[in-house]
């Protein structure tokens, strides 16, 4: 690039970044974040230095019963045959009154290429291919408070896993989409992530933290129903534009990290954009309605909101009712064998209702429980 070209680029970079108008510095928030970081570091240091001493003291001072964890592992039921049952169920149980089941199933709409995934109660899928170096966990938040769900993919030769040295969960073989998995699944209390070790092998599986709010934006921080994977899930990635207009677009990227949407508006000053991931719905399960708001309260900025819904196979159109009483029909687009309907709502309007229409134009579901930011789930 010539000198004048470089000068031009410098000028354009300056124009681009000077156009960004940061809000007031959130000093309190920064200091809170810094303090939390300092405490975590202090805790980690104390933990590493004191662990040996704590263990020694506990061994010496506590009666034998005290060595039992306060929350014993939750019981797990697995098929006695060692082969997944109907619907691909490889583990099930009841935890704090919540029945749960983990299964491997095809989550593509009928007629499309098979898309294998692990699901909890038939919904919130984790796309994963057979890979013995992968394990994952998720949480449902208010739908199953305090509970997490996890699975471990096991190599041949490992008979299963043990939770906290107490509860054995044998490996179960499951086949879907022509792929063969060896899995051990379980539920656990988020307050106590169990120690997971392989039977007959030294391997351990430190479960990832799930169900926490970790970032500053609500949409990005919400993660109930989204799986956190460790290792390589080996899932196929699908990506496509689900809606677009003059100067704006909503894309979806589907992989093991969930249905991840990206909404940007080139025609809005500052070219705002937002990305957020939500749970992967299954054809028969509840649908995730994602709101991607470009409004930004700290800056007093009001912008349009993008909406994306992963709709059921029988959905032919989605009728959108806005706060001014107007309606629009949105035709879903297929990405990765799944239907998505998406649209954008202008700055000064609000989405009031969504109505699902079948091929005959007949409404078969409707909801007014719609998010302004982040996602909610709805069973049509």
């Amino acid at each position, binding site marked *: *690039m*010539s000198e*004048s*070209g*470089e000068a*031009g*680029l*410098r000028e*354009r*970079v*300056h*124009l*681009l*970044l*000077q*156009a*960004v108008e*940061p*809000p007031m*510095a*959130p*000093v309190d*928030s*920064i*200091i809170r*974040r*810094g*303090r939390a*970081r*300092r*405490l975590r*570091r*202090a805790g980690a240091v104390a933990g590493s230095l004191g662990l040996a001493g704590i263990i020694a003291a506990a061994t010496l001072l506590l009666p034998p019963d005290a060595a039992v964890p306060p929350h014993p592992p939750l019981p797990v039921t697995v098929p006695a045959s060692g082969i997944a049952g109907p619907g691909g169920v490889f583990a099930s149980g009841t935890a704090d009154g919540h029945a749960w089941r983990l299964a491997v199933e095809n989550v593509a709409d009928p007629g499309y290429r098979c898309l294998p995934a692990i699901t909890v109660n038939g919904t919130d899928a984790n796309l994963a291919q057979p890979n013995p170096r992968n394990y994952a966990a998720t949480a449902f938040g208010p739908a199953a408070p305090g509970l997490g769900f996890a699975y471990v993919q096991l190599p041949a030769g490992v008979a299963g896993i043990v939770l906290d040295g107490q509860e054995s969960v044998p490996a179960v073989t499951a086949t879907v989409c022509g792929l063969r998995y060896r899995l051990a699944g379980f539920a656990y209390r988020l307050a106590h992530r169990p120690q997971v070790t392989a039977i007959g092998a030294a391997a351990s599986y430190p479960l990832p933290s799930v169900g926490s709010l970790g*970032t*500053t*934006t609500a949409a*990005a921080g919400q993660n109930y129903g989204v799986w956190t994977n460790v290792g390589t899930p080996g899932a196929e990635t699908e*990506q496509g*534009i689900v809606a*677009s207009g*003059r*100067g704006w*677009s909503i*894309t979806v*990227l589907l992989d093991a*990290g969930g249905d*991840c949407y*990206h909404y*940007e508006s*080139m*025609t809005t*000053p*500052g*070219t*705002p*954009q*937002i*990305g957020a*991931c939500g749970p992967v719905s299954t054809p028969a399960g509840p649908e995730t309605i994602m709101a991607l708001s470009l409004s*930004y309260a700290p800056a007093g900025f009001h912008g349009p909101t993008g909406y994306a819904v992963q709709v059921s196979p029988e959905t032919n159109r989605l009728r959108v009712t806005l706060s001014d009483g107007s309606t629009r029909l949105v035709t879903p687009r297929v990405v990765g064998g799944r239907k998505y309907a998406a649209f954008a709502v202008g700055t000064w309007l609000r989405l009031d209702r969504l109505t699902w229409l079948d091929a005959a134009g007949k409404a078969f579901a409707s909801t007014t429980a719609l998010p302004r930011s982040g996602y909610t789930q709805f069973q049509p």
Partner: protein
Amino acid sequence: MSDPRDELAAADVISGGGEDFSAFAVSRWPGLVRLAFGLTGDRWAAEDLAQATLARAYVAWRRVSRADDPDAYLRRILVNASNRRFRRHRVTEQPGDPPETAVEGPAELVSDRAALLAALRQLPPRQRAVVVLRYWEDLTDAQIAATLGCSPGTVRSQLSRALAKLRESPALGEGEDR
């Protein structure tokens, strides 16, 4: 009852190194947000990164406040955090659709910024960082190398690759000299 470590942290803020952390944070905030926006192309991510950077500076405030060049320290934290974020959150780094062709009037400026943003987002994170540090922060090769933890030669090669890619960008290639 407050945590004594919390009080210690508060004491750091009040007395750390002669410069009040709050004033430091306020003065550096706009520059960090803009730099982070150049690295990420995402305003929310930029503000989050700027917050995370200053939170780290808060933890190491004694060291930062006594550093010869606190801004270089902040830049290093921010660029590293941005690279970690890229590895964790692929989705927000997916290249967007090309912007629509510029139209006359004020929209031209908006469209030009959008084109540059789209072109920057096509670059790998390291090349993008080199471009932003050179053309926004006006750093030398050696300063960029110190920020990225690489050699000045690597900076030069990354920069020339980045410029070649920007030249190939349909949105920028024709207008680079204007």
